[in-house]
């Protein structure tokens, strides 16, 4: 094999190795928590949990704002995939379960202060159980 061809192959092999090495370490976890709208929750512009924020959470999910799961201890997990479905922008199945309390199994990837979750299975869905509208009304703008 000519020298330049060997060098080209070596470069290609190295590039392929770097591509596969880019994937972050993964930890398999089970998370129980509420599906939330990431923007409103993180900015604390309004009360962004439970039934008070359901309508806004649906708007934001349809608008393509990332959906996260807020665990009971306050940890946030940004959902980037649900089973084989890799749509994390305006995914109809995620829109329909906004504000629900769910239990999911998934692969956790941590990077730069953010927890990303690739959900492998939705084990349980309790629906909307955090009835915050009784205290906070509907956020934002009332009705």
């Amino acid at each position, binding site marked *: 094999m000519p020298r330049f061809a060997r060098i080209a192959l070596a470069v290609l092999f190295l590039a392929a190795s770097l591509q596969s090495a880019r994937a972050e370490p*993964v930890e398999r976890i089970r998370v129980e928590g509420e599906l939330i709208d*990431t923007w409103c929750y993180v900015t604390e512009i309004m009360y962004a949990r439970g039934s008070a924020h359901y309508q806004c959470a649906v708007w934001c999910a349809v*608008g393509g*704002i990332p959906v996260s799961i807020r665990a009971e201890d306050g940890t946030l997990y940004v959902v*980037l995939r649900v089973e084989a479905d*890799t749509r*994390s922008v305006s995914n109809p199945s995620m829109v329909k379960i906004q504000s629900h309390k769910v239990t999911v199994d998934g692969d956790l990837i941590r990077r730069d202060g953010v927890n990303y979750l690739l959900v492998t299975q939705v084990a349980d869905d309790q629906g909307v159980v955090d009835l915050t509208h009784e205290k906070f009304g509907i*956020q934002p703008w009332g009705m």
Partner: protein
Amino acid sequence: MARHFLLLLLPFVLAVSAPSHAAQKWGIDGEMTAQFEARVVDMLCELSGDCPENCGGGKRQLGLLRDDGRLLMAVKSNTLFAGATLDLLPYCGGRVEVDGLIITHPSMVIYMLQKHRKPGAEDWIQATAFAKDWKKRNGATDAKRWFRRDPQTKDVIGTYGKVGRPDLVPPPAAE
């Protein structure tokens, strides 16, 4: 409630009264204006190696990979209740200059995209691609209060109600 309403209107008020080159603060705890160059990446690709063409064509969250290796997810644009994917999609795999807010919260760090441009370009582009796309998809002349007029939001909220459960009666409107 009045404070919330004013906060939501703030970017529009400031957009017409402030210099065009500076990101607008929202008065959010932990916010910092941030203008920088980065590479636009498909988040799932960057994190897991699952890399379709064209960063998923607008169906995946996109991020900004800074030159120091730090990855920021762009979660919000300058359209109300809308993300930044469609604004960043044209730069998929390439470099972009962005202007916006880094918001650091105890639970995570996010980026709000306000403007973008190709590095070296003179003019900034407002991050309102969702509104433009929504108008086109819905044959509308404007995207004002798109979230109340959108067929998908109307369908979901029509089915499950404003509080997510059809068996519950929403409270009366706030004053």
